């Protein structure tokens, strides 16, 4: 499976649009949102850039589901992926490799963006950087499996992207990435308790600001378990002939 993961990862890395979308775009979002909301967080404890660095990195991890669909069933890779099916390679390796390659691509982007932002704005993550990374990794893994599972279910990358683009935006709003869900309404705020994005935001902020890591492990475990469920969906629904 390693050659397949390597190939999938390289396919992502040589795509300039995907690369920019996962590095420059989130970086710009952090810069701009931090700048225009600088009055919102006006204390020695936290600045707007501190807040939006965490929020946008969470959004990046969530959005990786769309990259996963691209890696799995985009037109230019469909036929070569089918050729992998001719080889003595177990079927499950075909979709698991996409999940793993997308995950690695995402984590690489996150590391890069967080390093750059930390350098420019002095964002320190309160000494909880690795706990925060663990949460992002779990969310990225979940998002990757969701993307691939949607492709397996819908048998079509474009339909999957249609749904995921809007679902991700909805989950981001529900999770409080751009602003508190309460801004939208109390019902929305109550519903946010069921959002993995909200769990990651809460667990991250508790680790960073309260030095409380109690929520990290349960959140990671639940997200990985959910990822496992989506992988099972892939196993039940994926057929090689979907590449035909």
């Amino acid at each position, binding site marked *: 499976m390693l050659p397949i993961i390597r190939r999938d990862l390289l396919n992502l890395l040589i*795509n*300039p*649009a*995907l690369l920019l*979308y996962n590095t420059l*775009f989130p970086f*710009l*979002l952090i810069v*701009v*949102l931090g*700048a*225009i*909301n600088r*009055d*919102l*967080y*006006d*204390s020695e*404890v*936290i600045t707007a850039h501190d*807040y939006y660095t965490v929020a946008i990195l969470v959004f990046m991890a969530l959005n990786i589901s*769309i990259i996963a669909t*691209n890696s799995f069933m*985009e*037109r*230019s890779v469909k036929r070569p992926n089918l050729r992998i099916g001719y080889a003595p390679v177990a079927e499950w390796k075909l979709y698991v490799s996409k999940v793993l390659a997308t995950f690695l691509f995402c984590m690489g982007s996150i590391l890069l963006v967080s390093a750059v932002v930390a350098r420019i704005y002095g964002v320190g993550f309160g000494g909880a950087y690795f706990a925060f990374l663990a949460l992002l990794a779990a969310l990225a893994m979940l998002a990757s499996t969701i993307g691939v599972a949607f492709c397996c279910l819908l048998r079509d*990358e*474009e*339909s999957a*992207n*249609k*749904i995921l*683009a*809007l679902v991700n*935006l*909805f989950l981001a*709003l529900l999770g*409080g990435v*751009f*602003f*508190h869900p*309460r*801004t*939208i*309404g109390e*019902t*929305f705020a109550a519903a946010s308790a069921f959002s993995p994005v909200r769990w990651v*935001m*809460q667990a991250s*902020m*508790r680790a*960073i*600001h*309260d030095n*409380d890591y109690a929520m990290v492990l349960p959140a990671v475990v639940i997200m990985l378990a959910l990822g496992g469920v989506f992988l099972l969906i892939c196993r039940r629904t994926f057929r090689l002939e979907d590449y035909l």
Partner: protein
Amino acid sequence: MIAYLRGFFARILAKPYYLALSVGLTAFFIFVALLVSATAEPTLRVAYLADGDFPVEVDAIEAVSLDAEPRRSELVLGDYDVVVEEVDGRYEAESLKNVEYEAFVLAALAGEDVEGYFADETPRAVRIMGFAVVVLLLQAFFYIDLFIEDKKNGALARVMSSPRGLGSYLVALTLYAFFIVFGVAMVVLAIFRWGFNQDVGMPIPYYAIPFALTTLLGIAFSLFSCALIEVRDNAAALFASVVLFTSILSGSFGALNVGGFLQRVMDALPQRHVMELSDALAGDALPVGHAAAVLAPIVLFFALAGWLIRAKLRAGRY
């Protein structure tokens, strides 16, 4: 042009599942946009640590009595905006956010008249359009799929060499996408207003103008993105990034005031003009200036898209 239009509808009707999914998603997210924006009531959330209940009642304050200080992370996340405790008979307020929040709460506790201090005076119609703008723009891209298909299968080259030409094709494509996105949006709005008895801030027919302009803007920019970037997913990534970014800057999710050059850029964004236009319409004014400010980029993007498509076809790029 009618022939092209008929062809587009025949192609989408030949995929009923795909059509149902697309239309269903459009309807769903417009409905959510209406729901969240029409029902939002901005308030300051105060964690009250003193004995008893929060002593004053102010519309803009939602006070929650707590036995212990909330976590710092809850303040960071905005679960609470201000923490109030009583020390030696005096109230003390602390906020991680703007010091004005602290001053506001203390003023309210001192019995001063603070009504309207933080009131969100954004008209309901403007709040609705703020969210609807994002959804309509994003949805428009999904109906340009047929153009992307025609690029890939060579049909676009046939169009160029036919007597009807590219212009008719693009007009028909625009009408096709417009009918679906605009039509669904207006129907959902009507259901929201009359079926769910919700106040939408201005008469339904007034919404036709901002909805129509936003849909056309979305179609024009989609076409431009797809003409500029030939790979569909890359075009989608660029399109979604720009739409989200500019919508946030224009204040779709809440008004922003930053001053300086950046403010001028934000004020010039077409999404901002759509919201200003809605504000004017809600006040029964005729927003010609704002409509023109939205029409200008629509025309520009259509023109650029047409020029790019023609140039790339001639260069054999499609």
